[in-house]
């Protein structure tokens, strides 16, 4: 009976080791979006082209909403991949977040415009409603405009295959 007690430190050690080992692979920056599984916030805003749009214009199909800005270094890296996604038929809406509008228009003219439209969010207030913490961020929305995923950081083929593709397949499966 007394011998058994000798294993207590070992058990505690193993428990702590497992806990810390698990902690190594967690991303401390990961923050669950408060918007996940909730509809996009209602809005009525102006695009970079000067048209007025609302959340209704973003619903109807599975799409991604990409938050970007010309001042954001990762957005430079990401842009080429967004262009590629657009050629594959992915519907992309943009939120031009806290940016200089002429610069943003110039960016799209020079680098190609993968977006259906871009909300001009100069003050970052729509970004606040989305719970944006920085750029780039990308939201996956279903046909009803419900947010299914929020991804922080630049998109790439690896991220798309890991995070977005399985969820889109699931959404398509559920619909069909």
């Amino acid at each position, binding site marked *: 009976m007394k011998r058994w007690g000798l294993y207590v430190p070992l058990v505690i050690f193993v428990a702590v080791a497992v806990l810390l080992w698990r902690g190594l692979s967690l991303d401390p920056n990961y*923050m*669950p979006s*408060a*918007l996940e599984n909730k509809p996009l916030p209602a809005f009525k805003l102006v695009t970079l082209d000067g048209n007025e749009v609302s959340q209704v214009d973003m619903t109807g199909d599975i799409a991604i909403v990409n938050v970007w800005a010309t001042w954001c270094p990762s957005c430079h890296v990401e842009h080429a991949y967004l262009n590629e996604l657009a050629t594959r038929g992915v519907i992309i809406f943009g939120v031009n977040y*806290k940016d200089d509008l002429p610069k943003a228009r110039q960016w799209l003219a020079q680098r190609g415009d993968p977006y259906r439209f871009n909300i001009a969010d100069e003050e970052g207030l729509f970004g*606040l409603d*989305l719970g944006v*913490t*920085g750029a780039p961020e990308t939201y996956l929305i279903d046909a009803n405009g419900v947010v299914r995923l929020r991804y922080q950081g630049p998109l790439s083929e690896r991220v798309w295959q890991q995070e977005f593709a399985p969820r889109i397949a699931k959404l398509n499966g559920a619909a069909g």
Partner: protein
Amino acid sequence: MKRGLLIGMTLLWALSAVAVVDTWDFSSDALRTRYLEFTQILRCPKCQNQNLADSNAPIAEDLRKELYRLLEEGKTDADIIEFMVARYGDYVLYDPPLEKRTWVLWLTPAALLLVGLAVLVILVRTRASDASPADRGSNALSTTERQRLDALLNTDNTQE
């Protein structure tokens, strides 16, 4: 004279340091106090462990601006917390609510404290019983053992 100048410059420096965080023009001191409280208890969503007052991340600036606007609009504390949680989740609260998801977080310290107390009680009891072996028959020496012990002790004495 020189010292006066130095003190004066130091004070000016201190004033500018305070002003970096707090540039809002509040309509009342009560609002300012609430603003300062909120910037202490709300966590910057971009930073791992900084509150809104500490962080100079752009998002923290924006949230401070929103906080100022909400306060001036006469929103209640509950409204403001709701506004922040609706956008950034419980992550922004340094005091997350007690719910199923946060049981571990809230109850682990209490559980560990109980475990610690239990260990302490066991240790103290064991010590107490070790200190008085005569109380427990099994630990007491039998007559023959006592004789052997005396013999050994006596041997040691003669050798000295």
